[in-house]
């Protein structure tokens, strides 16, 4: 039973208020993309044992999508942030670096 802070409502939202939306920061591939890239976009997933960036929606709250950085081994939540960004905020990445030195996730570290 996770709790995540909704960055819009600034409340600790219970998991039952939230909808999990899978991996964050996917780049949409579409007409003109190579088959491989399109497959990656739709199906290939990071699925790491450790730091993971993922999408959530505060569905029974403000209805906003947001992003969370979470450890899939301990369920520690490093932070949440707006879904309307292409990369995790720098301060969050730094916070993760102090807690999980040497972490990487796709292009981020």
């Amino acid at each position, binding site marked *: *039973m996770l709790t995540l802070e909704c960055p819009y409502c600034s409340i600790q939202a219970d998991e039952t208020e939230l909808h*999990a939306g899978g991996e964050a920061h996917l780049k949409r591939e579409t007409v003109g993309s190579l088959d491989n890239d399109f497959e990656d976009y739709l*199906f*290939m997933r990071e*699925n*790491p044992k450790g730091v993971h960036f993922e999408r959530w929606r505060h569905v029974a709250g403000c209805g906003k999508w947001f992003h969370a950085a979470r450890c899939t081994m*301990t369920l520690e939540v490093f932070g949440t942030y707006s879904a309307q960004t292409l990369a995790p905020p720098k301060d969050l990445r730094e916070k993760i670096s102090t807690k999980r030195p040497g972490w990487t996730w796709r292009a981020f570290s």
Partner: protein
Amino acid sequence: MKRYSVFAIAREAMRQHAGWPRAWASPTPKAKYDVVIVGAGGHGLATAYYLGKNFGITNVAVIEKGWLGGGNTGRNTTIIRSNYLQDPSAAIYEKSRSLYETMSQDLNYNVMFSPRGVIMLAQTHHEVRGYQRTAHANALQGVKTEFISPARVKQLVPIMNIDGPRYPVLGGLWQARGGTARHDAVAWGYARACSDMGMDIIQQCEVTNVLTDGGKVTGVETSKGKILCDKLGGVVAGHSSALAEMAGFQLPMESVALQALVSEPIKPCMDVVVMANTVHGYMSQSDKGEMVIGGGTDGYNNYTQRGSFHHIEETVRALIETFPMISRLKMLRQWGGIVDVTGDRSPILTKTPVEGMFMNCGWGTGGFKAIPGSGWAMAELMANGHSPLTEEFSMNRFRAGKFIDESVAAGVAH
């Protein structure tokens, strides 16, 4: 191998059971094997067993990070059925189910396969149509199922409330030769048989890297040292992405928690397995008398083998609706396992971008029933480079958009 039988029991009873040999050996790994299987769960052990039995390949090691059968093999709700809609699924699950029929005799280990019958309830008109479609498909696939009336459902499961105020039972898809088996025994029986064929089952041995040379697999690095091999099979439910990453490729897969629970044991009251997909719950009664209950998965990536309690609530609530009598039973234990879920919720049995390396994964919530069939097919794929049973389950299917989607018949892939 000392054969198990009532006579052997009688003989041993006279000498304080001192003469039973180890069910399987605990060898130290050799430097090199023809085949290394990573993961000594049901699927991995079955793969090794059929490599030996069907293809005479016995220079095999099965490497296990923890204890054999300690992953999802020992955590599931033990349902066996093959009433799948799509041809590739029906083929491998029916192969599997048929192997369960004779598994106790094949392995000389009583896995307690109990073909008590499985009903999948239809509680919406949509489900009725879906299961009627499945029944038609099954007839052509050689899978014996039938769509039965609410009255017949009630006759098979007297404790069920078929007139439930919310979702009355409108019928059911009935597979008389579906059922259950003792999950641990499946792993133990295969382990004993593999060990007897001279294969090495190496427990407490964690793979830390996959070794390749020029795009071809050469072995694995483990906590017990380097082990070389010509072919490598990855059969590590819940950890498939991690193993793939060691070999340098990615899988279309996410790992999530799935939970189950049992009640305290009661005297026999339900002789069949019931799955209610509209309300997301399934239940059977074990030979010990516990009601074994399963439900849905969490929506987020998780490796903790713990799930969120609200899923338990939802499942129990749904089952109380269908089986009101369970309201006065007590939950004895709940637990979780980590399942690998693919893009189309169907498994992957495949060659990989690394030559000589094969993966068997993505069984999601339905792996137990597939153990013997999956092992059979995976062994064939690894030995021959081709198996008709695995053909459609290649990891490349996602690129072409050639999915195997079982959810279409209102079913879920438990």
